[in-house]
């Protein structure tokens, strides 16, 4: 698959010449892998954007969907013509593709903003939430997965596996609601919703050159109260979303550590008298963590979906919250734009993750 490209030099730095030919036939080096992987981004985005466009347009034009029944027929027609929705579908499609190539994902109907502007305004909030969630997932999933593998088939293992399945089985929004019920309403420890309290929001607004990432902004104010407020608001959403991924990590790490624990080199190390602790840390756990990097790629899509639902639950004003709002107001241009944008983000992050995986683990390069 990868042999078509112009990458004859990679791999030939090796001193031996005989295997080089064979290696090239079976898939070339890192360079050609990266190139092919990079080129694959474009058909992916193209297919998704095309699918979304034709699906959305098969319901009719977005103006009628958003404003139908609220405007008289002639005004409606006027706006449809102004926006160009009366033209042949295919020329609309070409325009749309051209727009995307220029980075223009359309303008929302309900509040007349550019979709890319919506992204820059609300994307940071989603990014912040996703990063917190990933941290929770790492902190919870990896150690527990290692523990479960070490205690395999004993009680802690059983309990941890049930926990992992429960993490998966609980929809993020239900987990969020439960966390809210317990920690916000019953115990009163943490705020119910939002990214920060009103006073903090105002304080952050006064900052010039806001990043939109509240944690960074709060650090820049140098105000302990503000920082604490921002962190307190982040705990519950991060845990709700993080547990979802933590369950996946837990199961993955468990499976892989069981694999490495049973492998030859661990037996060999044990027979050489390597201590049990060192054996686990250096020999069993480390190689078991590599597949996690690959899985993170797949998790990004899941995290984004989770973020949409978590944001709605916690009124976390991010991209997902905004998407839900647009869905409610039937602003399908906005929905289409955000979804197409997310498709691009997913495709690009998947590429980055694959590159990192290929750099770390040579077996990934095909």
């Amino acid at each position, binding site marked *: 698959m990868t042999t078509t490209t112009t990458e004859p030099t990679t791999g030939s730095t090796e001193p031996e010449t005989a295997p080089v030919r064979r290696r090239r036939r079976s898939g070339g080096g890192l360079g050609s892998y990266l190139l092919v992987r990079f080129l694959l981004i474009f058909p992916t985005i193209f297919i998704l954007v095309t699918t979304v466009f034709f699906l959305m347009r098969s319901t009719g034009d977005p103006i009628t969907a958003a404003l139908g029944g609220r405007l008289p027929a002639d005004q409606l027609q006027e706006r449809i013509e102004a926006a160009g929705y009366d033209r042949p579908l295919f020329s609309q499609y070409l325009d749309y593709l051209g727009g995307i190539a220029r980075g223009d994902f359309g303008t929302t109907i309900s509040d007349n903003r550019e979709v890319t502007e919506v992204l820059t305004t609300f994307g940071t909030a989603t990014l912040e939430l996703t990063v917190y969630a990933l941290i929770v997932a790492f902190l919870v999933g990896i150690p527990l997965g290692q523990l479960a593998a070490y205690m395999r088939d004993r009680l802690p293992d059983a309990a941890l596996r049930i926990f992992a399945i429960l993490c998966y089985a*609980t929809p993020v929004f*239900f987990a969020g*609601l439960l966390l809210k019920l317990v920690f916000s309403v019953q115990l009163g420890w943490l705020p119910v919703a939002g990214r920060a309290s009103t006073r903090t929001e105002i304080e952050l607004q006064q900052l010039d050159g806001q990043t939109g990432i509240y944690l960074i902004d709060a650090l820049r104010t140098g105000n302990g109260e503000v920082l604490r407020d921002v962190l307190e608001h982040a705990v519950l959403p991060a845990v709700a979303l993080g547990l979802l991924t933590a369950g996946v990590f837990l199961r993955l790490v468990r499976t892989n550590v*069981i*694999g490495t624990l049973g492998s030859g080199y661990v037996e060999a190390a044990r027979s050489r008298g390597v201590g049990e602790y060192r054996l686990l840390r250096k020999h069993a756990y480390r190689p078991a963590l590599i597949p996690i990097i690959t899985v993170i790629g797949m998790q990004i*899509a899941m995290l984004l979906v989770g973020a949409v639902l978590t944001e*709605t*639950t916690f009124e976390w004003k991010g991209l997902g919250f905004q998407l839900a709002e647009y869905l409610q107001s039937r602003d399908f241009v906005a929905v289409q734009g955000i979804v197409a944008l997310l*498709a691009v983000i997913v495709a690009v992050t998947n590429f980055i993750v694959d590159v990192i995986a290929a750099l770390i683990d040579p077996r990934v390069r095909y």
Partner: protein
Amino acid sequence: MATATTAPSGARRRTWRQLPVVQQLRQSVGLQRGMLVAGLVLTGVFVLTAVLAPLLAPYEYGQLRDADGPFGAQQSPSGDHLLGTTVGGYDVLSRVIWGSRTALYVIVVAVLMSIVIGVLLGLVSGYFGGWLDRVLVVIADAIYAFPSLLLAIIVAIVISGGQSSLWGGILAAAISITVVFIPQYFRVIRAETVRIKSEAFVESARVIGASNWRIMLRHVLRNATRTLPLILTLNASEAILTLAGLGFLGFGIEPTSGAEWGFDLNRSIADVSSGIWWTSLFPGLGIVLVVLGLTLVGESLNDLADPRLRTRRRVSAQDAPVGLAEVAVVPGGTLGAADGLDGLEHGGGAR
């Protein structure tokens, strides 16, 4: 290789034992058996509840009043309403019970459709190859990488324009889920087909002069289905989560035309802030228990099919287990031990 397990065994009892879940149930021991049984029980209870909903539910899903007048909104659990009433004045218990029926409909329709389409596409694509195969693979990969709920939202908009009647809503949810799942079946069946079609028995069938369709359906498909029960259970649980997610975002079935857990959860967000727990807890538990049950079954099937994860019967126990399923093909790339070659040859590490 794969044919060995389907060797003609004659006796009917043997064939019964080789049914997907039954076989695993016999094969499992200890904790794994416990998980499988627990999953089967939960799933069974769910199906029974769904089937018997009219008998079990004290009220209709859309019922707002009885002979004594309206139920009243947000009533806490009491003798009349064991689980209280919602903000809209519906009986929570009844809606939870009726919700299981909606969920079952969606699972059945979605899984059936995606299996039929996905398997067919996978077979054709893998068997004939060529440009069609390449195009389909790229499309399937693109859709597979895409956030499933977002795609489901788009399809739901297309089909129902948002909200709708019971069957409209069920179909909308089911079709959106189908679109998301087809790539998974496609990938698995295609991979198996590509592997199987180079086997000798396919070659010989072709020599005899069997038609392409006959080879595909008789020789390839029959040997390519061993991972289907596993994907099926995992997909069924994912279907529930997607349905609930759609409902939670307001793409559910209108409360007057059916009960749906995700939609009810959406309506309960505001309740939570004022300490009303019963409107969210019970529909949520419904989702969790059903998904838990299905996942336990799927998870157990996965472990039992993977020699590295299967707990073996203690060696002393009777004869060696013969005819176990071979190495697992972890479906749809989920949590697979990515490259487990090092582990595989030492199957199970003996502990």
